[in-house]
């Protein structure tokens, strides 16, 4: 295959890895479906189609180990075997998905390919005749379902007395550049006659084509056309038949074998395959059609556009600022109104533009939710629990970066819910519950945030046990423990190194802990909160911003410095006098209506040390997880949309600041990372006789 360059080849492989990941996800889904209704012939066929595509694609990229295995798997994916395999087939499909995924990872990393010995043995057991077949090129049958319009063209050609052929070409699965192959046969056919119709049309990426069908009017004999179309190593099989209106609806299996085609004696089975394949092409082309008009774009390109929009937003605030200066200076100038109108118009368009670009980055939560059923199944199986997973709100859109980051925490929560949250069937029955536990996943919008809920109806978290363990591990002191409210006690779950399970199991003992879940959410400027009732269940709420690029923020001054915090975390702003501030233990608190608020003096960020209390203070009330705090600031500046820029270099990186932004006047404002600020300042105001003074 010298005609195709290295660069093209690596591009092809990238494309393959991308599509293979999707195929494996589909395979996982189908494996689970098989497990639920194994005898369903449609599910078996669906699975088979997925494996088939994977086989073809991997062969095209030269990944022979994978394509061979896929081929072997394909052989056992028949409704008959499924019916007598007694659930074994589903198990194999799921295992195969794992093996394929391991193989892909190895190909990607250029490492040796793991040999799927045990899987192969299991597959062989299922097959009657255990001899492994070689990779057979696609068998061919045309289905020639031309559209009405194409039918008309065909009829007209027939009326003109021309001979019309239906031609089906199987593209060699080993052909690395299908696009070129398709173009080549098009050219060949155009030389022989007039191409009346092509299926599928050019909207289907050639890489995904196995078979292409033409309708050709030509004066040349069928044999000659067939010979011309047979391009070695591009086209593995050719079918040419005269078109007849009556024949069009009936599947015909007139196969003209090529030299390479190994049409051996068990062709009866082969033909059955062909029929299934024909259906497969039909269905997948339907799926292709629904995907028409979609575009795969590099995320970097979208980010570049998003960046520019960000600059525009900064530009807008520069203009607004200048305009307000102008208005002050020329109060009576009629130009003011015109300026204001233009500004309003521009602001509206910019707002729409920003939303549109944001939307490009949005993907449905389903992309992550889809992975969870498999996890639930595996964990439930290994700890012998019965679980139903209910998923809703999967169509909710979320920024891709955020969603990707949420994937690990969500898997962890679900794993935890099955392993620790739910009781064993026996325990459940004893508690008067259904033997089968339920895990609910839900996603929905809430203002500028997305909420993802993960709830189980299990035993709930024993907060007493949790607290005593925390005391045992020295995380909280005895005194502190006594004063913890239930909600506060539950927060201990997020403390590093605290697990409520009596023994660490293989399942939740690995990977990320709850503290990591919280760390991820912090990083995303989101929150995680927990609600648990003993005997009834536990619910985790993950809240994340819609996007990471632009936030609505509240700005204020502390010691003449400008800071911003996400508006989403602000509950209210209160004024208080110094005398309302009380000292309890290490904290400063104040009473706001029914609530006692812990106060944080942000001045400590600038100048640590004792400080003077002013008579009147501004208290910005924020929520962090389930808790509320009051931030004491000097002066409120206002709300603004901020385009977040990272402070990612080594010199100034600090966990106290999550990013920076540029204001209309060109000055830089720092966006505070609230959870870090509170962790740092929440416990240590080293004051102060001054407060009481």
């Amino acid at each position, binding site marked *: 295959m010298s005609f195709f360059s290295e660069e093209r080849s690596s591009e092809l492989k990238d494309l393959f890895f991308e599509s293979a990941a999707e195929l494996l996800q589909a395979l996982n889904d189908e494996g689970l479906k098989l497990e639920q209704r194994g005898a369903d012939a449609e599910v078996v066929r669906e699975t088979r189609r997925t494996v088939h595509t994977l086989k073809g694609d991997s062969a095209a990229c030269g990944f022979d180990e994978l394509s061979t295995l896929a081929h072997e798997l394909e052989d056992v994916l028949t409704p008959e075997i499924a019916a007598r395999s007694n659930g074994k087939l589903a198990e194999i499909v799921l295992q195969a998905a794992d093996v394929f995924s391991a193989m892909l990872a190895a190909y990607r990393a250029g490492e040796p390919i793991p040999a799927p010995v045990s899987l192969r043995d299991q597959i062989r057991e299922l097959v009657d005749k255990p001899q492994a077949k070689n990779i057979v090129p696609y068998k061919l049958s045309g289905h020639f379902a031309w559209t009405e319009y194409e039918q008309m063209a065909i009829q007209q050609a027939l009326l003109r007395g021309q001979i019309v052929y239906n031609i089906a070409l199987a593209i060699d699965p080993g052909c690395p550049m299908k696009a070129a192959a398709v173009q080549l046969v098009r050219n060949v056919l155009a030389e022989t006659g007039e191409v009346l119709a092509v299926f599928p049309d050019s909207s289907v990426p050639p890489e995904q084509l196995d078979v292409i069908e033409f309708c050709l009017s030509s004066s040349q004999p069928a044999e000659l056309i067939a010979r011309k179309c047979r391009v070695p190593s591009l086209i593995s099989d050719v079918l040419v038949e005269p078109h007849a209106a009556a024949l069009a609806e009936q599947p015909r299996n007139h196969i003209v074998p090529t030299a390479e085609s190994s049409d051996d004696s068990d062709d009866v089975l082969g033909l059955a395959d062909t029929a299934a394949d024909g259906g497969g092409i039909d269905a997948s082309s339907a799926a292709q059609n629904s995907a028409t008009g979609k575009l795969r774009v590099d995320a970097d390109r979208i980010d570049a556009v998003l960046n520019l929009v960000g600059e525009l937003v900064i530009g807008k605030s520069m203009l607004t600022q200048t305009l307000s200066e102008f208005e002050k200076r020329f109060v009576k100038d009629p130009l003011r109104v015109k300026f204001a109108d233009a500004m309003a118009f521009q602001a509206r368009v910019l707002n729409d533009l920003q939303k549109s670009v944001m939307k490009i980055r949005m993907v449905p939560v389903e992309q992550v939710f889809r992975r969870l059923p498999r996890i639930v199944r595996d964990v439930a199986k290994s700890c012998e629990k019965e679980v139903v997973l209910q998923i809703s709100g999967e169509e909710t859109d979320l920024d891709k970066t955020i969603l990707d980051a949420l994937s690990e925490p969500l898997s962890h929560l679900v794993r935890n819910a099955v392993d620790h949250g739910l009781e064993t069937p026996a325990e459940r029955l004893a508690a008067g519950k259904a033997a089968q536990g339920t895990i609910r996943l839900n996603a929905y919008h809430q203002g500028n945030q997305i909420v993802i809920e993960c709830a189980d109806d299990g035993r709930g978290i024993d907060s007493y046990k949790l607290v005593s363990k925390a005391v045992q591990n020295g995380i909280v002191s005895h005194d502190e423990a006594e004063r913890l409210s239930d909600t506060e006690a539950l927060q201990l779950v997020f403390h590093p190194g605290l697990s409520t399970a009596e023994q660490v199991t293989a399942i939740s003992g690995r990977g990320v802990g709850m503290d990591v879940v919280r760390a991820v959410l912090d990083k995303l400027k989101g929150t995680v909160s927990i609600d648990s009732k003993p005997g009834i269940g536990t619910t985790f709420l993950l809240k994340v911003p819609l996007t990471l690029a632009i936030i609505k923020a509240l700005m204020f001054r502390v010691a003449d*410095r*400008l800071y911003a915090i996400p508006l989403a975390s602000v509950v209210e702003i209160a004024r208080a006098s110094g005398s309302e501030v009380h000292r309890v233990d290490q904290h400063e608190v104040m009473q706001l209506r029914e609530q006692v608020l812990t106060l944080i003096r942000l001045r400590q960020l600038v100048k640590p040390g004792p400080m003077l209390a002013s008579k009147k203070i501004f208290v910005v009330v924020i929520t962090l997880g389930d808790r509320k705090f009051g931030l004491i600031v000097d002066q409120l500046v206002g709300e603004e949309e901020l385009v977040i*820029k990272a402070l990612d270099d080594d*010199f*100034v990186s600090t966990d106290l600041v999550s990013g920076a932004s*540029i204001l209309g006047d060109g*000055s*830089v404002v*720092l966006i505070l990372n609230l959870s870090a600020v509170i962790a740092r300042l929440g416990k240590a105001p080293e004051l102060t006789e001054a407060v009481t003074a």
Partner: protein
Amino acid sequence: MAKDLQLVGFRIGKETYGVPIRLVHEIVRLPEITAVPDSPDYIEGVINLRGKIISIVDLRKRFGEARIEASRKNRILVAEIEGKMVGLIVDAASEVIRVPESEIEAPPEVFEESEIKYVTGLGKLNGRLVILIDLTKILQKGELRRIGDMAPALA
């Protein structure tokens, strides 16, 4: 003919220093600097350089200069160090210096033994001494170590 080395010369205290001209993107006056909490002493903060946020290091503090005076002559050297833009505050900077390679001497022993390995050579120019420095060393290793030193103090 020997090649000339093109340097951006700047002053800190009484000394003249030089860095290769290709590392310096531009020289700007001091704008308003936004301080970042929790950062080391010699980090002044961040500035907005035409829409980009870059960190500002006070090179005078870095060199342990005792007297730091704000002056209209103060400048920020915007340099690219290992792919990242950093602003360096210096007392004054304006000239491009050409030093013939033959006029550059290796740093004296006393420098090599000490911690200060960022001096790469000494250039002589009409009786003036120009200290050639390696910005990467000043800002990478040194800073990182210093930040590391500070961590226990903050905890």
